């Protein structure tokens, strides 16, 4: 069993050098995304592309609109009363921000893992199997559940008590169960909104490891508070920050988006440098 630090180093060195950006395949192409809650602007004019089979991290101080941004990517904000957005979000070329797009279909291919583990009050097995059943993936149910739990590195810990409640697991196990639930339905992209912020370092490491192992099959977009985490797991990193206007107005903005390497070693914007070196935020 390697120590956490060794494992972190191993994880870090596992990162392949990125090919030039134009050779990467885009999954999201976000243009001019502006989001408001009621009359309060949350995000202004964000444009960035997200690439396939990479881990893309969104970092930035509290209130910079990171969560708002990733919740736009699968229309999760539709559920918030008073939410409005402008701009286009092209997903494999199709604008999923358009009014005539079915948000349920969007979320079907773009899954999400939330900040706090939120397993269903069902058994461990049913937590994974329920989504499969509802979405009509009923063949080989047992196999699919086992595969998802294995991919989420939880199978060995729960295989003898699949009938136990999902809520009986520890926080870290619950979050891995939520990841298993998300990957079981075979989405194309998995959005993670600070998935490790409520977890201890061991559980955090397990989840980071898992992203590494799964990114050949899925693409990840992860919001994180934790810069070390971004540095460890992400191929690309976007730095968001808060901008202020007159009359106390404040909104989130994309400051810089580049390979994680560059964001952490040679950022081109002073604000990014201040943030990653810990002078701000």
């Amino acid at each position, binding site marked *: 069993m390697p120590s956490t630090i060794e494992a972190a180093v191993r994880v870090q060195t596992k990162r392949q050098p990125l090919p030039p950006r134009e050779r990467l395949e885009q999954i999201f192409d976000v243009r001019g995304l502006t989001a408001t809650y009621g009359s309060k602007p949350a995000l202004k004019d964000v444009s960035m592309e997200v690439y396939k089979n990479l881990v893309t991290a969104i970092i930035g101080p509290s209130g910079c609109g990171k969560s708002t941004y990733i919740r736009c990517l699968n229309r999760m904000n539709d*559920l918030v009363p008073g939410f409005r957005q402008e701009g286009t979000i092209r997903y494999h070329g199709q604008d999923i921000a358009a009014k005539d797009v079915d948000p349920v279909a969007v*979320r079907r291919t773009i899954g999400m893992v939330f900040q706090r583990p939120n397993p269903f009050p069902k058994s461990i097995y049913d937590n994974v199997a329920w989504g499969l059943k509802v979405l009509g993936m009923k063949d080989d149910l047992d196999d699919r559940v086992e595969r998802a739990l294995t991919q989420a590195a939880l199978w060995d810990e729960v295989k003898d008590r699949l009938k136990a409640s999902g809520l009986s697991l520890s926080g870290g196990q619950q979050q891995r169960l*939520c990841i298993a639930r998300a990957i079981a*339905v075979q989405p194309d992209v998995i959005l993670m909104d600070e998935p490790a912020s409520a977890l201890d370092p061991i559980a955090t490491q397990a989840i980071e490891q898992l992203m590494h192992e799964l990114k050949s099959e899925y693409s990840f977009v992860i919001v994180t508070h934790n810069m070390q985490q971004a540095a460890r797991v992400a191929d690309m990193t976007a730095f968001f920050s808060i901008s202020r206007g007159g009359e106390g107005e404040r909104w989130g903005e994309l400051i810089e988006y580049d390979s994680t390497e560059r964001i952490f070693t040679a950022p081109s914007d002073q604000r990014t440098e201040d943030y990653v070196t810990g002078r701000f935020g």
Partner: protein
Amino acid sequence: MSSVDLSALQRPNDRLRRRRVVNRSMELLAWLTAAIAVAFLGVIVWSVARRGAGAVDLDLFTKPQVPYAPAGVEQGLANAFAGSLVIVGIAAAMALPFGILVAIYVNEFAPRAIRSGVSLVLDVLNGIPAIVVGFFVYGLIVVGHGQSGLAASFALAVLMLPLVARSTIEVLALVPASLREASLGLGVPRWRTTLAIVLPQTVGGIVTGTTLAVARIAGETAPLLVTSSLVTNGTSWNPLHALQTVPVAIFELTESYEPADHARAWAAALVLLLFVLFTSFAARWAATRSRRKLARTGR
């Protein structure tokens, strides 16, 4: 440290003494009012039990009333109990699905403006005097179709609806948003999420609200007087006929000159009271249980 004059703390002080006296007496007053509130229930239960217990026997539940019976004819209130069961049962069957659907719409689907509007309407509906609801149903159904158990059920259902809807809205609001998000994030449609994930969490709360509502309307008398009070011979279970009910029977028996009738009124009152007490306690128990369950999932 030593420079603090501690003796000041112990010096006799008129203001302090007065404050203590006022505090003590206010505490006593608060205790007394609480005790009186509890005593009311105690006195009611005690006096009803003392006068009614003697007349609670098997005949009360098995033999119907006999109108204009000569003295010595054995009679009970079976027709009233049957009528109450039928009428309250049908009322609950009408109000329960309706109230739950209203609550689901209001809490899960309605825009914020409609949400508060409907809540206000439910409160107003809850405040409408029962006799007004009875009279409304009288004009709507009884005129033209005559009195019937169904008309009475409808009136009681109108009274029950806001109670069921409000209590269901309250438990739906307790279901954590993260649970809805978990399901929606999988690409599960909203109706399915509501049905399979949200509603099962609220069963305990809905049971509680319904039980309390049943307890409340089981003793309702005013709307029944105008919708279902004509007594027929024998025990009937047919809601298309006018049915006798427990509260109306109590009302009528108290107006009788026969002491035996008064005794039966007390007995019926005792049975009704025990039913309400029992359902309220059951509702309390269900509520605590479901809240504990929700707390576990909410975290």
